[in-house]
């Protein structure tokens, strides 16, 4: 029970790493990069080991104890009046999944980064930030109340801000960091209000209390905006910011300005899934608010589709993956919205494997190409960087949903749940399927453009070289996980148990049960339906692959012709539906204009200050007249002094004299 009784060890290790590496720079003592590496890898590695030990200890607990979250209260953080928020950490099955993903994938990416960043300036700063991120992310997934979760929530946002703007000499990088932070703050606005509403309703923000009390409440009806529904919608507003959903997704593609390991860790595998985690964590609230569920599912499906369409035409390798991430996050929300929380978390996990892999492999490609990111200027790399090619192909097969790969099982679980959902399940399913088609298409387009065909770059100038072992090692491990990561759920295809869902059952089980009951189909029929839908999904993925193959390998000219003939649609997609431009025109520019011209210049400078200065000028004029009274004659001053003194005395003592005055008729 070493770790289970001292949960704080897990997040504290990366914090120590961040502090040591951060201070090494602050005091100017030039640490060798090796020391930085040792601290960074060591702290996250130990944290990973501690997490493993923690999981082992938790799973050794008696079943009855495992059915409840294991909560440790450390100290009271904020206590004002009735309000109490503590540094309380908890472990349950949902946290375990997140914990292993965060520390495991996080550690791999740390190792990768030691290779990727080895020639960059500010090495210590990079790892200090990256460890800081790990600390906050662990706080986020281990928190036992909403306020501490919010600490992690804001903290990962900060780490993300610092890391996106890591190349702070580039204006686009610091712009992107700032944009990420502010857009996230817009979401946090909702999150905070949601928390206040929950506190007002339940008198506490501890998960255990809030969820226990919610269980006793009647659920809102569909279309009813009760307190639970509004709380859920407000929390979800926060989630749309952090997890880059419509309409707040705009920061994530820009966030690709950060170093590639950051994109892999923060903007693919972990931080951006925090919104999904919050919705899943609050699943009891959400299942009591069907309207909110419908909103979650719709926003998820819409985002999945919308982002995938943009992904079709992007040419920057990281941007393609970024839009793909937005789209896949939409999938996870779609799952949560139809009540399939464990499917959502399942996809969160497999996505962490294959998307981290894809980003890291993309980083390896960029590394090999000497910084080139445009897939239009690549091609034919498959023979030159075999390991990168092979691992990236595994990731692509996984995300496209090739049978047997991790993404196949999780995506299938989501589409299956959506299909069965009432009301509107079929529509959600159709949108999801269309997105899956596009996913397969744009991912294979990426693979073909990058690795196949003829090289479209100057081979004399670009010396394509395979990455060092420190980078390839994590790629291989993640490729392996992208293949086997979904096998836990495999037995369900031959009528066995879905081990992943069973594992999360202590958390989601009770809530997921009524969902299955409403489907009202016999088990056998359900099983055959699942197989049919899986078949459809595989066919769709293959179609996507084939289209990409045909357009980019067989008939390379056709894609351009299509782009030309549908110029309007193509440029709209290429410019991401002009959403950034729209926000700038509708929100940012008017706000700046009003602040500058109306609030500051008109109201402040001319209005208020004008009035004040006007009054002052008036007084000066008056004073000028009164000045004439100041004749310089001492006796006249004396007269004024006496008159003044009398006046003041009269004012002060008038009320006291009143009774006396009253006696005089």
């Amino acid at each position, binding site marked *: 029970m070493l770790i289970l009784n001292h949960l704080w060890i897990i997040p504290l290790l990366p914090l120590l790493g961040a502090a040591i590496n951060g201070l090494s720079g602050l005091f100017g003592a030039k640490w060798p990069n090796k020391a930085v590496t040792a601290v960074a890898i060591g702290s996250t590695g130990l944290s990973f080991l501690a997490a493993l030990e923690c999981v082992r200890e938790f799973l050794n607990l008696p079943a009855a104890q495992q059915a409840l979250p294991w909560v440790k209260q450390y100290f*009271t953080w*904020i206590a004002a009046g009735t309000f109490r928020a503590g540094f309380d950490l908890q472990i349950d099955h949902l946290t375990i999944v997140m914990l292993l993903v965060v520390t495991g994938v996080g550690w791999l990416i740390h190792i990768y980064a030691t290779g990727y960043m080895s020639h960059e300036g500010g090495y210590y700063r990079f790892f200090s930030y990256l460890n800081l991120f790990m600390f906050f992310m662990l706080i986020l997934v281990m928190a036992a109340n909403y306020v501490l979760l919010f600490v992690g929530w804001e903290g990962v946002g900060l780490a993300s801000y610092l890391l996106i703007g890591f190349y702070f000499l580039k204006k686009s990088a610091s712009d992107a960091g700032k944009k990420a932070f502010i857009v996230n703050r817009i979401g946090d606005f909702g999150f905070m209000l949601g928390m206040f*509403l929950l506190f007002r309703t339940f008198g506490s923000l501890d998960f255990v209390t809030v969820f226990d009390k919610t269980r006793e409440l009647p659920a809102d009806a569909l279309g009813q905006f009760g307190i639970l529904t509004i709380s859920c919608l407000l929390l979800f507003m926060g989630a749309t910011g952090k997890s880059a959903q419509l309409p707040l997704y705009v920061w994530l593609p820009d966030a690709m300005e950060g170093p590639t390991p950051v994109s892999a860790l923060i903007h693919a595998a972990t931080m951006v899934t925090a919104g999904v985690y919050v919705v899943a964590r609050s699943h009891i609230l959400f299942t009591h608010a069907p309207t909110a569920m419908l909103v979650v599912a719709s926003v998820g499906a819409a985002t999945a589709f919308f982002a995938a369409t943009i992904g079709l035409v992007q040419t920057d390798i990281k941007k393609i993956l970024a839009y793909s991430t937005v789209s896949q996050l939409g999938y996870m929300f779609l799952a949560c919205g139809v009540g399939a929380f464990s499917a959502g978390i399942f996809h969160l996990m497999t996505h962490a494997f294959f998307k981290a892999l894809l980003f890291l492999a993309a980083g390896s490609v960029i590394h090999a190409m000497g910084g080139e990111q445009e897939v239009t200027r690549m091609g034919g790399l498959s023979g030159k960087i075999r390991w990168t090619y092979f691992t990236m192909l595994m990731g692509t097969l996984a995300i496209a949903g090739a049978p047997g790969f991790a993404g196949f099982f999780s995506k299938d679980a989501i589409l299956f749940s959506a299909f069965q959902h009432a009301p509107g399940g079929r529509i959600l399913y159709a949108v999801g399927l269309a997105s899956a088609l596009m996913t397969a298409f744009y991912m294979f387009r990426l693979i073909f453009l990058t690795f196949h065909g003829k090289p479209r770059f100057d081979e004399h100038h670009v010396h394509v070289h395979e990455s060092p072992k420190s980078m390839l090692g994590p790629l291989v491990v993640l490729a392996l996980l992208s293949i086997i990561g979904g096998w836990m759920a495999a037995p369900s295809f031959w009528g066995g148990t879905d081990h992943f869902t069973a594992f999360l059952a202590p958390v989601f089980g009770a809530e997921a049960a009524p969902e299955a009951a409403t489907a009202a189909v016999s088990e056998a029929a359900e099983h055959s339906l699942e197989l049919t839908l899986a078949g459809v999904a595989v066919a769709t993925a293959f179609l996507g692959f084939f289209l990409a193959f045909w357009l980019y390998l067989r008939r390379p000219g056709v894609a351009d012709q299509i782009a030309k003939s549908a110029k309007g649609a193509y440029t709209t997609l290429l410019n991401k539906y002009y959403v950034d431009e729209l926000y700038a025109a509708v929100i940012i520019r008017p706000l700046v204009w009003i602040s500058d011209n109306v609030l500051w210049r008109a109201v402040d400078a001319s209005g208020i200050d004008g009035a004040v200065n006007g009054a002052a000028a008036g007084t000066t004029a008056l004073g000028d007249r009164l000045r004439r009274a100041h004749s310089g004659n001492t006796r006249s001053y004396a007269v004024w002094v006496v008159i003044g003194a009398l006046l003041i005395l009269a004012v002060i003592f008038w009320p006291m004299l009143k009774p006396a005055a009253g006696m005089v008729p």
Partner: protein
Amino acid sequence: MALLDHHLLSVILFTPLAGALLLLLVPRAMENAHRVLGNVFGVLGFVVSLPLLARFRPDVAGYQFRENADWIPSIGAHYSLGMDGISFLLVLLTTLLGMISILSSWKAIQLRKKEYYILFLLLQTGMLGVFLSLDFFLFYVFWEVMLVPMYFLIGVWGSERRLYAAIKFFLYTLAGSVVMLLGILAVYFNAAKSGAPPTFDVPTLLAAAQQFPDGLKVWLFWGFFFAFAIKVPMFPFHTWLPDAHTEAPTAGSVILAGVLLKMGTYGFVRFSLPLLPADAALRGKIIHIVVLLSLVGIVYGALVCMMQKDMKRLIAYSSVSHLGFCTLGIFALTPHGLAGSILQQINHGISTGALFLIVGVLYERRHTRLISEFGGLSTPMPNFAAIYMIVSLSSLGMPLLNGFIGEFTILRGVFEVNKTWAAWAALGVILGAAYLLWLYQRVMFGAVTKPENEKLPDLNLREYATLLPLVVLAFWIGIYPKPFFRYLEKPVQLIVEMVNPGYYKSAEVKSPIDGPLPVAGSIPRSEKVNVEEPAK
């Protein structure tokens, strides 16, 4: 030690004044002696306030360390001092920031050092007097006394438009004080009507004011409100602030933002709240107006902030926004709102004080405050960049730093009363991130564009000494604010019981601090979760 036992507050109050008097005796020619002595008394002023930490009892309601002596017996004015949890925090903030600002003037002030340090110490005594006085007459004296040194600090040691700013500051504040004087006299005479001997004793007068007819109370409220709103400053009485802040020397800005503005909010808490009329409808109207002004201040201040080209002006407008949170919290009339507001006043002193010090660091190096003159400073000044980042984050309300605790508690208290108010105020949190990060980006990020910025030296030891205490405090309040809330528990309870009598009964509040802390360990939960079967 008897002096410390019975006259601790007087010692704290008059140590700076003693320093000022001593400095008067030092010949003008001994240039260095002035700033050494000034610093000695800056430190001493802080040191003598430290015994408070051990002696002040947060669990005792009411005023402590009372001192009372007849001063002008004929009108009932006393030399009366006392301290409760609210003034405790503000006094410590004042002595700490006083020490830091005096230290920060070491190199910045080259002209007329003797007068500068004398005036600064005088200012310290004036501000401390405001927080410690329990006699309206004495309070008013200190309130006015403090104006004069500040006027000269801006007017003599300020930058280009210093005279305009100094006079504007003086006239604005004076206008407010005159109205307040009338208010004080009105309270004084009306209380005397009942036949009790005339007195300026604050607790007595405020207790008597509870019996005043509502019509009178409304007038009194607005009279005091006018004075305090100018001081805070609340929209639309804020336009003196940007000018005063911008023109004042660094130390003046630090004190102005850190302490002087708090005199306004302190006045609201101490004097305005008890003067609220008893009639619910009437009171509701007043509260609505004040809250509206606070909300406008929060959003308006933040928006205007973004348009500023001068760093100090930007931070000045951010004060308007931040102080809007403080006044909002006060007039929510809930324990969370009030406690959060007072803590936020301390937080604002720490964060904004540090921000002005940061501008001072840059001003000493470049003699300009224009944002466009900087850019890319992270490269030559990496340690400065780190501290500036922490301070920015503390100001914009990042959890685990102080600003978050204050804002969160205020919003939580306001939400209880009115959700729309909380929503508008929370908008300020978004904008806060926008203007602070944008400022940071323009000053620190990017490549160095101006050749004169290329070789700027990083922080020196003295600058660390001014900034690090504030950074440590920011983390302390952010991570473990409980001790601070403990000092506020009792006074806030007294105030809420007076102005919002039904509150504690209806909310069935039991202070969480009174109860024992739950023991760390796996806590038991309700049984029913246990029995649920995992679904297939």
